[in-house]
């Protein structure tokens, strides 16, 4: 395709058109993932709660989320008096931008990744933490006390938990000695890091799940929007599609966290390979990579949803205690352990 385009037009234009195509595809996929995630959330929580969930709109309720999207798009966007209008309107876009950037990093299949360069992990972490700026802006510019409290909570929480995410990912990077996502996946050809790195990798995985859950503000860490405390937290004053953007970003962020977990710990699109079992490995290779990736990612998503719908919410001081007194020290010790494991070649 590249060749076709370059034969028709100058190189720059071709590259530009390619970029646009990739971008559109990315956004489409983003939207599809969002719809799938929202639908999954509804069905999963309904199953936990002895309910049916949406069943009336379309077969098995499949058209429920498209209906929601249509409604959101046509709903009035309220402008708040005495709010900082520019920042107020900017905030949801920052949140969604951060989410899309992080989403672009995920390697879905072999060679199917939008952004892939040698400090990919680094970029992902940097991009995803822009989101907190959007949330803080949303809380501040709304001129609403609930929003402000929600934003402050979210600031404290997300910045703290970034540390744990960093530490747990760093633990794996010690093992892989690369920060490029495609490389990380490629090195798991003979076994996933979750199994290869034994104890420290397992600990890092658990820490990552906890911190990742906190990072996307989902229960039991949903303090920033804590419905029963702050009505809707930082997005209390947002209506229509602006609220929709926050809503969508929350779900896709959950997918991103799960996707990163799948990539780093569970081998990404790499099929399940067990060293020595050649026959088994070839059979596994017949299943396409993106099936593996989505399978693993949605498995992690399911895990996080299970946690969300079961656990009560933490309190702000408990959240910070959990992070600074438990997760960070454990993460640091774990990193050290991993270094020892790698240096003495104790891993598989």
């Amino acid at each position: 395709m590249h060749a076709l385009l370059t034969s028709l037009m100058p190189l720059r234009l071709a590259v530009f058109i390619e970029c646009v195509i990739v971008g559109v595809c990315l956004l489409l996929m983003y939207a599809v993932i969002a719809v799938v995630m929202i639908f999954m959330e509804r069905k999963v929580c309904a199953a936990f709660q002895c309910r049916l969930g949406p069943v009336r709109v379309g077969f098995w309720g499949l058209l429920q989320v498209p209906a929601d999207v249509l409604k959101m798009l046509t709903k009035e966007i309220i402008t708040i008096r005495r709010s900082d209008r520019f920042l107020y309107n900017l905030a949801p876009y920052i949140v969604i931008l951060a989410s899309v950037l992080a989403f672009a990093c995920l390697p879905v299949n072999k060679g199917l990744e939008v952004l892939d360069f040698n400090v990919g992990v680094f970029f992902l972490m940097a991009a995803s933490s822009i989101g907190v700026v959007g949330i803080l802006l949303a809380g501040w510019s709304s001129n609403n006390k609930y929003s402000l409290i929600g934003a402050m909570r979210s600031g404290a929480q997300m910045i703290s938990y970034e540390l744990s995410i960093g530490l747990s990912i760093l633990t794996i990077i010690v093992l892989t000695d690369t920060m490029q996502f495609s490389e990380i996946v490629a090195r798991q050809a003979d076994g996933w890091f979750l199994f290869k790195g034994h104890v420290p990798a397992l600990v890092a995985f658990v820490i990552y799940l906890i911190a990742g859950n906190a990072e996307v503000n989902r229960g039991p860490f949903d303090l920033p929007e804590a419905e029963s405390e702050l009505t809707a937290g930082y997005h209390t004053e947002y209506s229509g599609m602006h609220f929709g953007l926050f809503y969508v970003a929350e779900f896709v962020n959950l997918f991103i966290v799960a996707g990163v977990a799948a990539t780093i710990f569970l081998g990404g699109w790499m099929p399940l390979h067990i060293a020595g079992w050649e026959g088994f490995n070839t059979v596994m290779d017949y299943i396409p990579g993106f099936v593996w990736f989505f399978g693993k990612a949605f498995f992690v998503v399911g895990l996080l949803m299970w946690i969300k719908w079961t656990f009560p919410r933490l309190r702000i001081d408990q959240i910070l205690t959990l992070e600074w007194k438990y997760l960070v020290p454990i993460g640091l010790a774990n990193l050290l352990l991993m270094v020892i494991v790698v240096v003495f070649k104790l891993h598989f």
Partner: protein
Amino acid sequence: MSYGDFNDNEYIERMIAELRDGGTNVLVGCLDELIEWGRSNSLWPLTFATSCCGIEFMAVGAARYDFARFGFEVARASPRQADFIMVAGTITHKMAPVLKRLYDQMADPKYVIAVGGCAVSGGPFKRSYHVVDGVDKVLPVDVYIPGCPPRPEAMLYGLMQLQRKVKVQRFFGGVNCQIGEEEYEELLRRDLTAEKNDLNVEGEEKHE
């Protein structure tokens, strides 16, 4: 529920006839239908309840009756994000301005359902000195659900009636009409002055 099972079809049909009076553009009409289909299937309630009916409203959301089946799932606590308000319970004189304010805070299109005798007409408290006899004195009501409190089935029926009503509305043509900036300022100024004038709070002072 099949069409014949609703008991007030004439009313809806008359409404459709009125709305479709003069015909519709094919393209716009189709778009309209699509949008209203989306809206009617994604009505999010505001978590609002004042008394007994509120508990039944919660029961409608809970496992046995489960209004999530119809798309009423996401009860929003912030009025900005809700589509309709279930006035479940008595509205008192003290609550009425608050309710009005909540309604004003909601984003268009918004709907109101009066649930239970109290919200419909004042119910058993009609003669009280502090009860608004009927929420339609304060807000425009779309659907009335009588009962004290109405059974969850009745509430679901009422909710489906609202869906039907939304379905025949038209997006292009008035529902989303917003007021202009000047008109808005004028309304706000009137509100603020009314607030100042009406509060004759420091009536009596020191007396021997």
